[in-house]
């Protein structure tokens, strides 16, 4: 009698598995490079093609002769065909040359480098706090869903989510920075350091932290709701699954059922969503930095759009969009390492 096998066995040797991983990492990075290229294309289109003649923009309506305009065009390569201009732009970009700011008369790359770390400090701190807070509250809300904590945390989150970031920032600035009525202001209202800080590392760190409180609270308040909602619904979905019944049947305590089975599984899809929402954090950074004059990329963007200083705006656009894309590639790879279901397929 023929032996009828139940299905071809899906065993993969270890070597093949690491090859697959390498191929996957390659594909993700390749895809990311395409995205970064698209950002460059978009940056070129938005700021070089859409606004019309950049030479006119540079003169900002000042009366200039046709010869002067032509000379200007020639100097900036604007008399070249479009594809040639794009190629030059791309080559410059790869060399880290983002052009020269109209308003500051300094290289855009230099300005961005100065403002990069303050933004990383602000968005990094607030993201970490918001993620921890959101995941913890989301887990609690889902586990006791329908309970007081769930209803309260969901409504608070929903209300905060409905508030524009910058308005919350203005309110906090007025209430805790300037002070209301007899109450004095508790926190500095602008910048990231006071002019009269005593020398030494510790005082400087404390001073920066003091300045960080209000912008950070503002960002956390608006962003954590996202994470709460995502974690809550992800866990609620997981809670209906059969394998939790299996876990209970095995005699696991409820809190172990939750800690060992439900929460880790619910966290996996949440990871991706956290990174997908990074764009929102960046959006928040622009307005929060504007409100609190935090010397980061957001404030730089605001200064650029007031000009409008197109090379500067182009620079911040490319850097902000590029960093979000890079973070997302990293998140995607992380997800593939964490989740065995996608790891295998």
């Amino acid at each position: 009698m023929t032996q009828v096998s139940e299905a071809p066995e899906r065993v993969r040797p270890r070597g093949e598995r690491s090859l697959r991983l390498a191929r996957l990492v390659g594909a993700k990075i390749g895809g990311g490079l395409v995205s970064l290229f698209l950002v460059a294309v978009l940056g070129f289109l938005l700021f070089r093609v859409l606004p019309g003649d950049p030479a006119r923009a540079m003169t900002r309506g000042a009366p200039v002769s046709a010869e002067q305009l032509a000379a200007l065009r020639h100097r900036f390569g604007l008399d070249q065909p479009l594809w040639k201009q794009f190629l030059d732009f791309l080559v410059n970009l790869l060399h880290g040359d983002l052009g020269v700011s109209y308003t500051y008369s300094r290289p855009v790359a230099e300005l961005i480098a100065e403002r990069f770390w303050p933004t990383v400090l602000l968005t990094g701190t607030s993201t970490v706090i918001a993620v921890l807070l959101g995941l913890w509250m989301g887990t609690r809300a889902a586990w006791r869903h329908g309970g007081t904590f769930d209803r309260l945390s969901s409504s608070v989150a929903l209300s905060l989510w409905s508030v524009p970031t910058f308005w919350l920032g203005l309110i906090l600035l007025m209430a805790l920075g300037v002070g209301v009525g007899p109450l004095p202001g508790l926190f500095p209202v602008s910048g990231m350091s006071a002019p009269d800080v005593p020398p030494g590392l510790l005082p400087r760190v404390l001073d920066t932290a003091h300045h960080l409180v209000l912008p950070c609270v503002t960002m956390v308040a608006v962003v954590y709701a996202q994470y709460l909602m995502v974690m809550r619904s992800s866990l609620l979905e997981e809670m209906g699954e059969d394998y939790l019944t299996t876990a209970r049947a095995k005699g696991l305590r409820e809190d172990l059922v939750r800690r060992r089975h439900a929460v880790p599984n619910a966290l996996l899809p949440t990871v991706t969503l956290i990174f997908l929402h990074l764009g929102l954090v960046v959006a928040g950074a622009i307005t929060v930095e504007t409100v609190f004059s935090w010397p980061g990329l957001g404030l730089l963007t605001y200064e650029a759009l007031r000009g409008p200083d197109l090379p500067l705006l182009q620079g911040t656009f490319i850097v902000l969009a590029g960093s979000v894309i890079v973070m997302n590639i990293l998140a995607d790879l992380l997800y593939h390492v964490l989740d065995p279901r996608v790891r295998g397929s």
Partner: protein
Amino acid sequence: MSPILRLRDTSVSYLRDGELVPAVRGVNLSLDAGETLGLAGESGCGKTTLAMSVLHLLPRSARLDGEVLLDGHDVRTLSWGELRAARWSSASVVFQGAMHALNPVRSIGAQIAEPMRLHEGKQSESRLRERIAELLEQVELPVRRVDAHPHELSGGQRQRVMIAMALACGPRLLIADEPTTALDVVVQSQILELLGRLVSERDIALMMISHDLSVLSSSCSELAVMYQGELVEQGPTDRVMADPGHEHSRALAAAFPTVGDSRFRFAPAGTRPSEEASSAEPGSALLAARGVSVNFGSGDGIHAVREVNLEVADNEILALVGQSGSGKTTLARTLLGLQRPSSGRVLFDGAELATSTRGLRRYRGQVQLVLQDPTGALNPRHTVYEAVAEGLRIHGATSDERDRVTEALEAAELRPAESFFARFPHELSGGQRQRVVIAGALVLRPSVLVADEPVASLDATVRGEILALLLRLRVERGLSTLVITHDLGLAWTIADRVAVMYQGHIVEEGEVEQVLLNPAHDYTRTLLAAVPSLREQPATER
């Protein structure tokens, strides 16, 4: 010694919209070590609820009354701690659908180890690994798969993992809830055999739950039949099968026909008009596949169908039998023109299938499809009338729409047709839904019907009715039908001819009596031996 499990007047009700809805009413049962009890019943009869009450795994909305004595202790009065200690160490469960019952992101080794760590206190990692290896060996899984995740295993392998997990803490009672439902017949018989062997080796009690009486009869010594929350019959398997006392038991038994038993053969060769039989020669076939192959993916992709020749003659029912993955559904889709063959030709009435959109549309008026799951096959937003009229509207035949819909519904035995017009699918029973799907196909007056597992998702008692309807359509309208099924019993019941498909090939084809009673190919024999059949089957020991 007291029995391992004793149920005394056990009842379970669910709280729904402020009302208690009874699911199980006053069940009395007792089970001793080494005993095997089969609990049979249709979906919704309360059998799973009853099983879950043994470990008190019911949802919060459930109320449990009466006594459930597990090892002499009433689970209702145990504290949570005592109950948790009893779970898995006194009684464990093999759940239905192992894909969902296993945690998708933990390795199977870790999941098998979990209850051992929990119930047996500290033990060395190496000892634990040894025992997991032992368990995997017992369920005939390669030990090196211990780090695999559920999605990397086949359905049968996952079910083996569930069994290994259930045996991990040496329980005295094993509850198996539809352990083989989603599996192929061959795998099903392997799992049942494994389960039976392990249970008898360890002298533990087994309570097996299934809607399929033949599965239970081949593996349990006692049978209990449940109907609307009550036990309507209980006794030794032999007695219940040979002489069912309750009419529901009789209906259940009849729904799983025995191959070779002439009582179950609805379509003896004689019913076919003889002049039609002669038209079944090659060439005059109504619908034919000639050397059809279907490959998925490029290059070394999957060869789902390989070089198949198949003919459906005028006025005949042909059963295409095979396991899932044998390529039978792909072949059916190809015959319907829903899938383009990689090579070979599909002929209808001697002419090759059109490739143009319009030509295909005309063809589809002639060959119609009936799907396995009538619940999914009907758009939940469309009324019965719209569902049946859909084909007419696509083909622009709307002038006498109402009359034709009425006629089709009545041909599918939904009478009076008008009373069904305004209903939505969710207001119909499973059998009625399948009749609506059939009516939706009939309304185009096709000459061939392709039915893909037409009764597989229906309750046992409704199956016979739908099969009888297909048969009547052939007799009364001369409608040819290609029935695709994994169930040899179904082929025996209604088909004139049968074709057996295995790994993309048709390995055997011929008259039903010839193929099923004197199988020529090894694979057909394997299939026949694997059918968990009643006593007449020589393959089983009983």
